[in-house]
């Protein structure tokens, strides 16, 4: 049974995704049952790790930069705690984000606004991938004859710091600490993801609009119609007439 191909493949992947194989630690031998040159396994492990980190770096350029001197230790911890389980960029990005959140439970993030930056970056990756943009027939609530709902491609975030300058200007900007309701969205016709601040009341409205809703619910005041039209124009809400 130990020689079954699946067992050998599982042993190989366990080794190739280990810190010992990826970082080439001396004195840590490869699984002798594999019978493969450890130097070549190290090379394979390094190639695979670099491909995975390319996916993660593409999603978290600012977070990784802001990790600074801790970056190597964080990545090492990530490798040991989270073996790759999915091929997609977004799945790897989410896995890295969950790892960071768990780490920050035990170790205060430095700088303090780093969790907000990471949350924004994973939200951007999600919006970019259109991961939440499930076609009607694949799931979710079927559209009624008329109604509005939050656009499925929008991600809402409530941040403790106003991190928008980091995204709009540069990573060195020091964000102000204040409760900041944000929407991460790909507006119609835009070529890139945008991070926009919302009024708290709009944030709450969008939070409540997960399902199709009759716009008459918001009353017949002209201000309500103007607001809904504005939200549709910004890609925050989709409507069926």
């Amino acid at each position, binding site marked *: 049974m130990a020689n*079954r*191909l*699946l067992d*050998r*493949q*599982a042993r*190989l*992947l*366990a080794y*190739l*995704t280990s810190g010992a194989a990826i970082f*080439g630690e001396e004195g840590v031998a490869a699984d002798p049952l594999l*019978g*493969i*040159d450890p*130097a*070549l*396994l*190290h*090379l*394979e492990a390094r*190639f*695979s790790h670099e*491909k*995975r980190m390319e996916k993660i770096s593409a999603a978290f350029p600012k977070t990784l930069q802001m990790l600074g001197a801790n970056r190597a230790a964080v990545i090492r911890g990530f490798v040991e705690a989270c*073996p*790759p*389980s*999915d*091929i*997609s960029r977004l799945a790897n990005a989410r896995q890295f984000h969950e790892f960071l959140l768990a780490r920050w439970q035990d170790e205060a993030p430095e700088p303090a606004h780093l969790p907000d930056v990471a949350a924004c970056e994973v939200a951007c990756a999600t919006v*970019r*991938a*259109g*991961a939440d*943009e499930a*076609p009607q027939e694949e799931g979710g609530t079927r559209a009624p004859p008329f109604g509005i709902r939050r656009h499925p*491609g929008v991600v809402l975030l409530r941040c403790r710091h106003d991190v928008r300058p980091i995204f709009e200007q540069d990573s060195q900007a020091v964000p102000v600490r204040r409760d900041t309701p944000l929407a991460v969205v790909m507006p119609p016709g835009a070529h890139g993801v945008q991070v926009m601040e919302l009024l708290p009341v709009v944030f709450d409205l969008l939070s409540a609009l997960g399902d199709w809703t009759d716009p008459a619910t918001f009353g017949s005041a002209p201000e309500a119609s103007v607001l809904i039209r504005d939200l549709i124009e910004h890609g925050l809400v989709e409507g069926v007439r």
Partner: protein
Amino acid sequence: MTTNGSVPAVGLGYRSAIDDWTRANLDRFDVLEITVDHCIHAGAAQRAAIFDLVGRVPLTAHGVGLSIGTDAPLDVAYLDRVAAVVERLEAPAYSEHLAFTRVPGRDLANLLPLPKTEAVAEQIVAKVRAVQSRVPVPFLLENITYVFEWPDSKLSDAEFLNLICRESGAGLLLDVENVFLNASNHGFNPYAFLDDLSAGLVREVHMAGGVTVREEPSGRPFLADSHSHPVPDAALDLLAYALGRHRPSVVILERDDRLDAVDEVLDDLARIRACVASAQLGKRHGEPVAGSAS
């Protein structure tokens, strides 16, 4: 899918990062290769952009997510999604790598070799038949590049491919760059490999260019299949040699990195076209093509 019944169609692996450029240059490609996994995992906009190409240019279908070599049942739900994409693309064939990338709970997302034995070949043949039963177009297996070999491998690369394709009816997507890299990295004669492939096996071809890395700690140069640089002349020589022995219907240039260097992409396509034209001329005049197994 040939340009005029005998000359291979020459094209590019479609990448959404250069979608605008690809559309602006559509007349330069006889065919585009679509990665079915991009259709399966992409957002609606990216999927729509891919399906918008149907009818504008012939498309062929290639996969990276099957992991046919994993010693576990195939993911039939994935295969059914592949079948739907292939149908939507109106692709004449579907190709995948003869490799494994994952085991339950762990996905390396990198192609790994299989032990080249008759027993493993038998397992793969059964899997190929399962694929053929769910995806109703010809199925092609692609030779991969590999860093290491399993110690119990008994068959050569060509013997392993010949055996699986003969028993299953699969065709071969010959990745010429991978032959070039493996020959360089593992010290075998790439022309002998091409000679050893069964006649008529090669249905499609991949071309690409990689980089040289240093193997640690020995410092030995190792060629990596990065799809990032121009196709090396030695790989074009191998293509010419292969075209003297096989009649693929499609030759695809793969490019995944440094995509902004579009002039390199166009130059590679021109070089591949010249190689294809030269091989056709050689066939007409009965002349030998470049390279030699001796």
